[in-house]
Every structure is written in C-alpha cells, then in structure tokens.
C-alpha cells in the first residue's frame, strides 16, 4: 500500500489526471479550467499536459457547459464539467434535469449520459453571496441523476475517478472549505465503492450521519462527546443519491439513536430523507426520534454570520443531548 499525504485539491487533481490518462475520451470543460487551473486550481496543469482539446476553457455560460457535454456524451466522450461555484449551477439546471437526467431513458438506453458535474459546495470560506450554497437536494430529487460528495483527500482521489468511469450522470459535490486540508491518499486501492457509506468512527450511543464538510465537524463533536461519556458513531454518507441505507440501518440498529447533519436547510433535504427512511426501517430499534441539525431556513447569510448558520459542534452536541434525553 502506497500512501501519500496531499490536500483534497491535489487529490482531485491527481484523480482527474489518472482518469484522463486511462481514457482518451475523458474531457474537462469549464470556466477558467485551463491556463488558470480553475479558481480553486483543481485542474492545475492538466491543460498543459493534455492539450486544449481535452481541457476546454469555455465561455461564461453554465447551461452551455452542461448542454454541450450532453452532445459530447452522445458522441461517446466523457466530460467532467466544472461549475465554478454552487450558486452558479442554476443556469445549467434545465439541461441537467431535462436532458442529462432523462436522455438515457428517452433514447431507450441508446445514449449513455456519462458525464460528471463537479460543484464546489457548502460554505466556510467567508465568500460573498452565491458562493456557499448546498444545492444537492435539487439533484438528489431528480430521477436519472446520482449525487455524491467526498469528505477526505483519499475519497476525493478515488471518487472522482469512479465517477468518471460510471455510466450514469454524477453530480459531484466538493466541500470547498476542505480543499486545502491534507490527508493520506492510498493510490493503490479504492476505499469503497462510489455509492457506499463509510463509518468514520465507531460508537455505541448515537449514530451521527453527515457528508462533505460536516464530517470533520461531526468528528470533533464525537471527541467532545466522548469526554462527556457519550459514544458517537460517525457515518459519512458519501453517496447522497442513492443513499447506502443498509450501512446506516446497521449503525442505527446498534445505537438506537440518530442525528443527521447538513448545511442545507432541512425542508425536503437529504437529511430529512435519511430520517424518514431510517424511521421506517429501524422503528423498533429507535429509542428517540431522528434529529436534524441543518442550516436555517433562510438564504445563506452574509458570511460574517456563517458560523452561526452552519452546523457547529455545539449544535450537534445539543441534538445528541436531546436524543439521549429520550430513554425507553
């Protein structure tokens, strides 16, 4: 096993490089992805090595980035589309929902919509408006799409490659606040399948499920809870659509308590879906109702306030306490 320490940004870059080396049909397209290497430098150096035909600096039009990737997919290419920020994906929403999600079905399986739409999502970087959103539920609610999110450099390295190789369209959500954090990457073996959840920390009292940037916060909460004598099991969903519900069921059946954490508001969210599904499947194991720790139901606030909006260690522990207070 070869492991290397690298940031999530570098891991994504290396993963994309691997994917492009493996298959000549893999392209990258987006705004500023070439010479600049993307605003987050995820595609740094790739245009230099693979050429302007494969790493395409596009005009500024998100619907066209996705809409032309659809045509490229029909022609047999696999395009990784970069959306610069979460809040800029909406101009492409029509193409994603009307064409990307439906053309495989509409063509009776003839068209393979193998494309990846990378979206830096969630907050935590002190940006201005439209740069900190969590739009994952819009896509998860659309049949025909799959939605995944990485939380570690190792997952980033492998999940981006698995996404490029997959034959269904993948919405790839990258927690931008974790881009610069380092972790060990095993370049020999993938940690899991693309749609598998991962238990990040084993525990016995409460199952806490999250994804993306929330995982680090949940792990901190678990450290604190442990000091206070409560054992949290931390599950990283990794795949948001479909959910790896079996892994989650196993954990909840063990702990009997459930807290879900997300930056998106909880109305019609991934977290709400987890609570609903797990309530149905684990009804006799649950000793308390599932709790949701989410962003508030307001437009993402000016980022001087974002730490009061995003789930914090305190808010997670508060939900854990509420779950623990039910005792039956």
């Amino acid at each position: 096993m070869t492991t290397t320490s690298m940031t999530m940004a570098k891991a994504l870059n290396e993963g994309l490089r691997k994917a492009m080396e493996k298959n000549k049909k893999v392209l990258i397209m987006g705004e500023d992805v070439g010479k600049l290497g993307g605003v987050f430098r995820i595609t740094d150096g790739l245009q230099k090595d693979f050429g302007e035909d494969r790493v395409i600096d596009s005009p500024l039009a998100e619907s066209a980035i996705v809409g032309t990737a659809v045509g490229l997919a029909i022609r047999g290419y696999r395009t990784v589309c970069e959306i610069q920020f979460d809040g800029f994906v909406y101009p492409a929403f029509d193409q994603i929902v009307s064409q990307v999600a439906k053309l495989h079905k509409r063509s009776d399986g003839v068209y393979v919509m193998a494309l990846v739409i990378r979206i830096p999502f969630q907050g935590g970087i002190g940006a201005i408006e439209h740069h900190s959103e969590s739009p994952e539920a819009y896509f998860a609610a659309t049949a025909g799409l799959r939605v995944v999110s990485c939380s570690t450099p190792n997952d980033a390295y492998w999940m981006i490659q698995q996404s490029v190789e997959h034959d269904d369209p993948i919405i790839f959500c990258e927690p931008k606040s974790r881009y610069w954090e380092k972790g060990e990457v095993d370049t020999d073996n993938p940690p899991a399948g693309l749609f598998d959840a991962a238990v990040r920390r084993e525990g016995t009292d409460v199952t806490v499920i999250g994804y993306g940037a929330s995982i680090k916060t949940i792990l901190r909460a678990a450290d604190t809870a442990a000091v206070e004598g409560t054992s949290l099991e931390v599950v990283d969903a990794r795949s948001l659509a479909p959910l790896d519900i079996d892994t989650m069921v196993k954990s909840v059946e063990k702990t009997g308590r459930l807290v879900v954490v997300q930056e998106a508001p909880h109305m019609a969210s991934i977290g709400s879906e987890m609570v609903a599904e797990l309530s149905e499947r684990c009804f006799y194991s649950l000793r308390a109702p599932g709790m949701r720790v989410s962003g508030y139901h307001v437009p993402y606030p000016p980022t001087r306030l974002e730490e009061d909006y995003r789930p914090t260690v305190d808010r997670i522990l508060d939900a854990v306490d509420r779950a623990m207070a039910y005792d039956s």
Partner: protein
Amino acid sequence: MIGEELVQLLTPEGERVANSDYESTLSGEEIFGLYRDMFIVRRLYNESTSLQRQGQLALWAPIQGQEAAQIGAGRALQPMDFTFPTYREHGIAWCRGVPPKDMLRLFRATSNGGWDPQKYRHSVPAIVLGNQVLNAVGYAMGIQRDGAEEAVMTFFGDGASSQGDVLEAFVWASSFQTPVVFFCQNNQWGISTPMSTQSKIPLYHRAHGFGFPGVRVDGNDVLAVYEVSKRALENARVGGGPTLIEAYTYRLGAHTTSDDPTRYRIDAEVEVWKHRDPIERVKSLLVREYHVKTAKFDEVTHEAEAMATQLREDVLAMDRPDPITMFDNAYAAPHPLIDEGRREMIELGVSGGSH
C-alpha cells in the same frame, strides 16, 4: 413582408428564379423525389391529425406548410451527419429513415422517444425547446475531436430563437468553429406569439452579431432550401464553421392539436400563405418543365395512401406498455430505488415482471 435578401429559386407559381449566389443542381428525377417526400409527409400529417381527433393520439404537432423547409434540409444531409430535432420535425425524421409509426409513439404516449437515434442518426425529439441546440453543438465538438468529416444540423423555431440556450449555442459554435448548421424554421408564430415579439430584426441577421454567416431562404421553396442547406453542411464538414439558416415559412395549421389559432390570427393571413404552398409550386414546375404525367403523380398518391393505411394500423396496434418497463433505462447501472420500485410493482401484481 419578404425582403430581397430572401434566397428563392422557385416562385409560388412554380417559375424558376435566378439567384446570384445559388442555383439548383437537381435533376428532374431528384425534384420529383422531393415532391414525393413532401406529399407523403403531408399525408402523414393528415392521417395523424385524424388519429388525434379520433382519440388515438394524445397530441399531434402539425407540419402543414413547412414540408419544403424540412424536406429540403433533410435531403441535403449525408448519412453520417447527425440531427437534433424538436417534436415537429416529422419531415426530417422521414428523410432520416425513421418509420412513421415510430414518430407517433411519443404522441400516442407509449414512449418518451420512439426510435433508435444512433441507427437513424436522428436524435430523439426535444420538447424543452432550445436544449437540443446546445446538445447539437456539443456533438459537433465531438466530431472535431474525432477529426471526422461530418456535420450536425439542429432545428428550432422563431419561438425558441429567444431561448438563452440557442444564443449560448451561437456563442459556443462561433468560438469553437464547430461543424453545425442551425436550421431555424421561422413559421411566424410561437403558439400565439407573433414573430414581431421574438425579434425586431430578421432572425438570420443575428448570426452576424455572433460572428458567422446567416442566410434567409424561402422556406416554402424546396429547391432553395436544399441548395442553401447543402452548401452550409458542406462548409461545416470541411471546417468552415457554423451557419444559421432562417427558413422563412408559415405554420398553416395549429401549433398542436390542443391549439386554436383562430383566437390570435386572421384568416386573410393564412389565405396569403396557402397561395405559397410548398407542394403545389413544385408540382407546377414538374408538369411544365419536365412534363411529368398525371399517372406518375397518382403513383405517389397511392403510395401515400398505403403509408397512411399502414400507419393507422400500426398506431392502433400500439398497446399500453407493461408498467414495469418504466424502470428500464432510467439508469444505466443498477440502482436501489429502481429495484425497490420494480419489486413493489410485482408484489402489487400490476405487472408480470418479465423485464
């Protein structure tokens, strides 16, 4: 209404017109072939309208009046070219070899597509208008990367010309010089919205602003549409970049069978355009210049009738699909919610679950 910039090779009376840029290259036999195509496609339109009125189709999108625009463009295509249509391109589908019954699966509501788009090199119909134009440009980017001598033609109307996707497609095609021909059928009406609301300048002028050529052709003149399309496609195949063709035509019928055009346009306007019928003018030319006999026209009439009879039979035989087929091809790879849905449907006994 029609300016002098219009490319026309045949008047509404069927007289040839000299044009400084284009001349007809077609033989009498080939022109007769275009007549045959247009006649059969109009019969297809009539039969489908009847089927809809008799409750056999959920909806139908008329093509009447636009036959020359579609047959002229459709016959200019090479087999390896690829096309991205809307739901009104029955004439293009005919030229690409799509069986008429397959064109009606969408309208019988038994399928969301209807044919194998790779087999006929004719994509499945776009209903969200404008989307297909960007998809076409992407396909053309693929042709460039493959180094192939092929072109893409994509279809939209005066209504969709206002969509952002169409304008983004113009930017992309111009920036990357993709081998794509934008074929706009300006039929004057976007349901009830007149052309004057979509644009204050002739649509083909827009191309110049994006940096590629635009041509307005008499969309009811199949000879002119054929030549203009052929040149634009040839130019695209050899790396000459995109062209916008505005086929100036008229939707003689309703937008769809759910529409009532008497609410928004006057009969006099429709009458004017009836005199510009695309089929009659070719017939006049064939009789006068090529002395085509009545018997030969009758053969086409019989062929069209046989097609219509067969079409009706095929449509009536098109049954409601097994409900379980809704799960097929929703995803390319296995998906737990698809498995769950299938299982539930089988348990409920709604389907035999043979798939």
